[in-house]
């Protein structure tokens, strides 16, 4: 995190922050600081979402089936390809954020924040049918390390997503917060993808 300040001219999801001065090095949130609520509230809501997803996945009796999408050989392959598309968009997310934060030798283009916003939106929307199938048909499972890790990461992913969306609406957050949440999202997404799509392609073959 060598450059925690926001890039000038960024009109992206970070646009609510430009007038903020460099918030300085990150430290533990000080509860007497009014900004602390801004940090803590989205994180707490995110944690709550993650836990609730896990509890629902655990309590709901898995049905073993769910509605399927046309054009794929099975529900598992529909999910695997949706997740793969989401991962590609996730890479766009990381790349566009990297440029927007001024890490690229070339200047940030005016369309980059829009690209960042819309690639993120589409990526998350693509994951929704996948997670509904996971939760409804399969549930939170602990049968193997792969499945346990996948279940946990799924909860973390949506918790981090909610925390990030809520954080975007607040002013005066420390500069590290969005990159940390975004990084968590991307890391969880890659982990989810490796423990599902890549595993499926590896064990059942790469096809639609």
């Amino acid at each position, binding site marked *: 995190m060598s450059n925690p300040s926001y890039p000038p001219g960024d009109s992206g999801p970070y646009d609510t922050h430009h007038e903020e001065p460099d918030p300085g090095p990150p430290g533990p949130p000080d509860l007497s600081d009014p900004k602390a609520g801004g940090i803590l509230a989205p994180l707490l809501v995110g944690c709550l979402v993650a836990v609730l997803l896990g509890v629902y996945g655990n309590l709901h009796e898995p049905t073993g089936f769910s509605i399927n999408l046309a054009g794929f050989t*099975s529900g598992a392959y529909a999910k695997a390809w949706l997740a793969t598309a989401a991962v590609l968009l996730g890479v766009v997310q990381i790349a566009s954020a990297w440029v927007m934060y001024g890490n690229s030798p070339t200047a940030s283009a005016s369309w980059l924040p829009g690209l960042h916003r819309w690639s993120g939106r589409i990526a998350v929307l693509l994951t929704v049918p996948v997670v509904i199938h996971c939760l409804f048909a399969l549930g939170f499972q602990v049968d193997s390390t792969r499945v346990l890790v996948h279940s946990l990461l799924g909860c973390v992913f949506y918790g981090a997503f909610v925390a990030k969306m809520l954080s975007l609406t607040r002013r005066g957050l420390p500069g590290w917060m969005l990159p940390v949440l975004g990084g968590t999202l991307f890391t969880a997404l890659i982990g989810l993808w490796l423990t599902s799509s890549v595993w499926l392609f590896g064990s059942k073959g790469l096809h639609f």
Partner: protein
Amino acid sequence: MGRRGPLITLLVVVVLAGILLAVNLARSPSNQAGSGTAGQAGSPAGQTGSLAAPPAAEVAPSAAAPAPAVPPAPGSTPSQFPGQAKYTGYTDGNHAAIAVTVRGGKVSAYLCDGKAVEGWYQGSATGGTVEAKGRGTNALSGTLSGTKLSGTVSAGGKSWTYSAAPAAAPAGLYRSKATTGTTGWIKDSSGKVTGLRNAGGRVEPAPPLDPSTAQSVEGGDQVVGQ
């Protein structure tokens, strides 16, 4: 857009998830009879009569008591099969693996202990029960209770009780027919594979399951006799 953009994104995600969940709930087996969206071909026959079937989640606790080959107690409403489903499980005592696939009221099933005993079954699913026959006197019957399928299965003159749970791909039943024999594999929900090859009556160990050549068996596929 401004500050509300992310909240709108959040809202859209929640709404989409809610819609998908509602569609799923409307089409879940126990609600299917009363749902207008269950128009897909392959709804098992006999579903329309039971609007009173309770949601699967409420039935589930009673599913723990297996009642093999015994009709459901008077007064209890049997669960209904969804249009398409597969179940994997084991015979009691873990003697053999079993896979039962249901599609459009038709059943294809396989029993395999991975050593010497195997059998293919074909039949029908009516309401919440399956009846299927195999080679000779081999037979399979089962009753759905909640989401669990349990019943009896026989092969080679012996009979076992079994219970099986809903499974989703890649778990399921696989089959490969070649001049070297017919091979069946059952992949359970934890990924464990049990298989055997039958070469003209001689049973031998199955080669590793190769998903690119093996056929995924769904209910209604021809698996008994040729």
